[in-house]
């Protein structure tokens, strides 16, 4: 349980930092597509018996390349929808062939807190440290680019490189978060709290801090509730994230938020 607690805290901090930019850059679909696209990686890892994390990281990286390429070709929505369906179908095939079916599918899609061991905890800690450091490194140009790409390119930032960096960070966050909250629910932790945070302040860095705080609150309550009720943690993460969004909507209204992001 202690492992679960530590790992979930790390995941929440990472998701808060990354989620802030997901919301600012309107990348909800990408944040949904990357974890789902990483699903066959987890299936392949379980087929070959290697650490889950490497499979997830590998397919997340592949996802970054594919989505980046598709974005350049236009028609982002369609192509990423098809790509993620294809990746999922491949994942189903791999799982079906490996014979490890129902239970592992459920764990991968909706998260499995109790399956975390010490090795995984060390990997997650290292990666979330790296992710937060990367976010801190590119935060200023990335935010400027999200607000106005013209302004950012005038200031000497390269839009393509920034987008690539953003997707890379998203992929890294995905790889550590999927085993904990599951491929289907990673993005709800990124989108819900961060979109609510905009209602409480119009300063970007303060909004980021609030987003991280709300993510932590969401994850901690989700774990506690899951422990008490014995229900899956993914349910509480999904519902509490949506609740955050509702609170934000009630507090702020949408018009006032437009200039924050």
């Amino acid at each position: 349980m202690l492992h679960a607690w530590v790992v979930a805290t790390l995941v929440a901090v990472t998701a808060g930092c990354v989620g802030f930019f997901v919301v600012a850059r309107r990348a909800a679909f990408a944040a949904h597509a990357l974890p789902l696209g990483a699903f066959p990686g987890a299936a392949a890892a379980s087929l070959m018996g290697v650490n889950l994390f490497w499979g997830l990281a590998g397919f997340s990286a592949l996802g970054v390349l594919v989505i980046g390429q598709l974005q350049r070709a236009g028609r982002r929505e369609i192509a990423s929808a098809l790509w993620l369906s294809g990746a999922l179908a491949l994942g189903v095939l791999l799982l079906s062939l490996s014979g490890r079916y129902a239970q592992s599918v459920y764990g991968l899609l909706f998260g499995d807190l109790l399956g975390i061991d010490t090795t995984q905890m060390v990997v997650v800690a290292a990666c979330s440290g790296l992710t937060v450091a990367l976010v801190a490194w590119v935060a200023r140009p990335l935010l400027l680019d999200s607000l106005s790409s013209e302004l950012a390119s005038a200031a000497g930032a390269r839009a393509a490189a920034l987008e690539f960096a953003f997707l890379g960070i998203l992929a890294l966050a995905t790889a550590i978060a999927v085993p904990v909250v599951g491929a289907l629910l990673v993005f709800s932790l990124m989108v819900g709290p961060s979109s609510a945070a905009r209602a409480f302040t119009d300063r970007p860095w303060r909004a980021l801090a609030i987003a991280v705080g709300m993510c932590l609150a969401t994850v901690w309550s989700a774990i506690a509730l899951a422990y008490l009720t014995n229900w899956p943690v993914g349910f509480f993460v999904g519902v509490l994230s949506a609740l955050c969004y509702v609170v934000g909507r009630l507090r702020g209204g949408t018009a006032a938020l437009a200039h924050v992001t």
Partner: protein
Amino acid sequence: MGEMSAVGLMGGFWSNQPVRVALAVGGCAALVCAVVGLSTVMRRQAFAGHALSDVSGAGGSAAYLLSINPLFGFLGIAAAAAGLMEWAQVREARERDLLTGVVLGAGLGLAALLLYLDMTVRSVSGAAITVLFGSMFTIPTSIVPVALAVAVAALGASALIFRPLLVTTLSVDLARAQGVSVRTTGLIQALALALAVSLSAMTVGAILSTALLIGPAAAALQVARRPASALALAVLIGLAATWGGVALAYQSYYWTPGHGWPVSFFIVMLIICAYLAASAVASRRAGAPAAVPLSGCQDH
């Protein structure tokens, strides 16, 4: 595998009851999805369509818990979510994207809980696979008439709003000037989307049904130059992929002895092949821009 044995397999194929049910339900799903998918793609609602199909998984899981017809489960939740998103509709594209994401997250959370309860309370261990990834060969025969009725309703709704929807998609102001009720049209479209998505969730499963909804329509819009030909092509691609997928999955029992490959895998892969082929055709045409105004699905 020789010609003779393939013919022999096909003989068994047609007389096999689960296969017939799969072909009937899959055919309904492909037909409806192609029609509704066209307007979904043209209105750039791919993410909303994807969200609805994922969320409908919660309904499918609830159906196991309540032991009701799974189609009604998919349908109930999909219609509720479509209504919610249409009701809370926000003007800005940015907010719509976030709202869709939030509804999707909440729905998936609910699906997680219901699937867990399926496994623990009802001890249906395969529920997660069946609901999320479909299993066409286990569809009960009793679903066929319901599926037909749902298909007819969805096609009727689409036909009813075909013209107003086309005008609204081109320009909201133009539609208002012509006396079209944009709100009602949107609601009927959302309902048709919910019907299509729940049929397709029965076929390829909740989280793969996006492929059946978006794929054939997007492929057809890339190469067709007129709405009618786009419609015909989308229906053709959808039906071919679905029935081809069923046939391939049936054959796959002989590739890995005693263990068939998932039908959904073949259907999705065939659809993606069709999309890639359509892209290739579209980019080979020198006058590719001719297809652009119709497809309307470029990145904004």
